[in-house]
């Protein structure tokens, strides 16, 4: 797949995610409305809310993601070195220069977000800036630049904000069902229905969320950005050596990363644990494999 096909496919996937989200929320609205005796108003309200949320997130999602990760926009004066690298690789990729953000964190990590190459940003941690040399930093930025150029960022951004709100909503619903209705004097019969409904909602929601995250961060996406990034710098060793440093860093934790934003980062922002579930729900391909592929180029 060349870059044009990749972009087109990513735009289609973004629409699919958007539609799935609206369907999911409106179904939820219908069920909640049904429980309280008025399914249609619940349905309409939910659709309206989901649409509004989608529109806001399409335009403002990146600002919200940047705010929750604690990233701060920096000027050329503060970080000339970072700026020149970003500018240079934007020229190499033939896209407008994205904005540069920095997270004050000793962990080594980076991500890109935005809705298209005209509205995009690259974020790196201060740890990354301090510990990588110029070639390695170029490798990392080139990887992010590839995500921007092929519209990976749009899909990943939408996934992040939708996963975020879905987790929040299901959490909120669970609490309100458990504590809210218990205090009211209701028939046992109705309570049973409510709990069955909760069970169904949760059963539907949890795997769906997992599927969405997986859809967004198929391992191929990271491998693809590695390869395209290496093509931009004409130097796969830069990124390989950067990934090696990231792997060997004792503190992979980005303090403000959470489940909704984890898949945005170049390498998993959580503590490294081993086990069946980490492999199954891992948002990133194994770093050793990525290094091996880069070194084989």
């Amino acid at each position, binding site marked *: 797949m060349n870059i044009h096909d990749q972009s087109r496919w990513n735009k289609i996937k973004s629409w699919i995610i958007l539609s799935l989200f609206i369907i999911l929320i409106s179904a939820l609205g219908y069920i909640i409305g049904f429980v309280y005796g008025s399914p249609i108003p619940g349905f309409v309200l939910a659709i309206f809310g989901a649409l509004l949320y989608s529109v806001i997130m399409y335009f403002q999602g990146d600002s919200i993601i940047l705010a929750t990760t604690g990233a701060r926009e920096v000027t050329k004066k503060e970080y*000339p*070195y970072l*700026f*020149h*690298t970003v*500018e*240079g*690789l934007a*020229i*190499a*990729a*033939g896209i407008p220069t994205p904005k540069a953000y920095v997270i004050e964190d000793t962990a080594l990590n980076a991500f890109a977000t935005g809705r298209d190459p005209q509205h995009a940003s690259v974020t790196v941690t201060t740890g990354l800036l301090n510990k990588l040399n110029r070639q390695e930093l170029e490798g990392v930025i080139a990887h992010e630049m590839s995500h921007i150029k092929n519209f990976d960022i749009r899909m990943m951004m939408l996934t992040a904000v939708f996963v975020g709100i879905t987790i929040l909503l299901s959490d909120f619903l669970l609490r309100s069902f458990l504590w809210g209705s218990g205090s009211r004097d209701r028939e046992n019969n109705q309570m049973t229905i409510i709990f069955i409904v909760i069970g169904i909602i949760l059963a539907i929601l949890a795997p769906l969320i997992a599927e969405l995250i997986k859809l967004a961060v198929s391992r191929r996406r990271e491998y693809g950005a590695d390869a395209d990034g290496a093509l931009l710098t*004409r130097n796969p060793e830069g990124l390989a050596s950067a990934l090696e440093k990231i792997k060997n860093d004792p503190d992979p934790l980005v303090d403000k990363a959470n489940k909704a934003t984890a898949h945005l980062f170049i390498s998993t922002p959580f503590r490294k644990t081993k086990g069946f579930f980490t492999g199954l729900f891992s948002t990133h391909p194994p770093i050793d494999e990525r290094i091996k592929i880069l070194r084989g180029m």
Partner: protein
Amino acid sequence: MNPTWWIVIIGGAIVLIAIVIYNGLVRIKNQVENSWAQIDVQLKRRFDLIPNLIETVKGYAKHEKGVLEGVTQARTAFMGAKSPKEMAKAENMLEGTLKTLFAVSENYPQLQANENFLQLQEELSGTESKIAYARQHYNDMVMEYNTKVQTFPTNMFAKVFSFAEKELFETPEVERQNVKVQF
């Protein structure tokens, strides 16, 4: 169906395909030209940075007149260059003299501590790599354009609308040699 209808339908389809292909060719041709202009932007940037650099260095390293003059000369030669070959030669000279300047400047601790100097140094090396990236992007675009012009069925339309192949930017022989650092 009437045979005349078939002719109209097929003719219409060909015209539509021609429009799409023509527009595609124009788009990528403009991208190629734009990426060429990008190289000039970066070259101009480096060109503008040099007088500032010389002024800053002058204040600390008066004895390095020869080196400073070398840079100025190379810059002037670069400005006067007409053919690509001359340009490449001047650029090679400019790169060499700049390297010499930065090597020499290491003997002046005060200069090394000067905020302005460090900033200019970072700016220049950033611009150097941007020039390289701009050229690389130009070549990428030319390659994409040439592939389009050469492959079927676009090549037929390219010929009709006279879209000629473009040349890659190649580093001239002089530049491939290692840059000499003179003291």
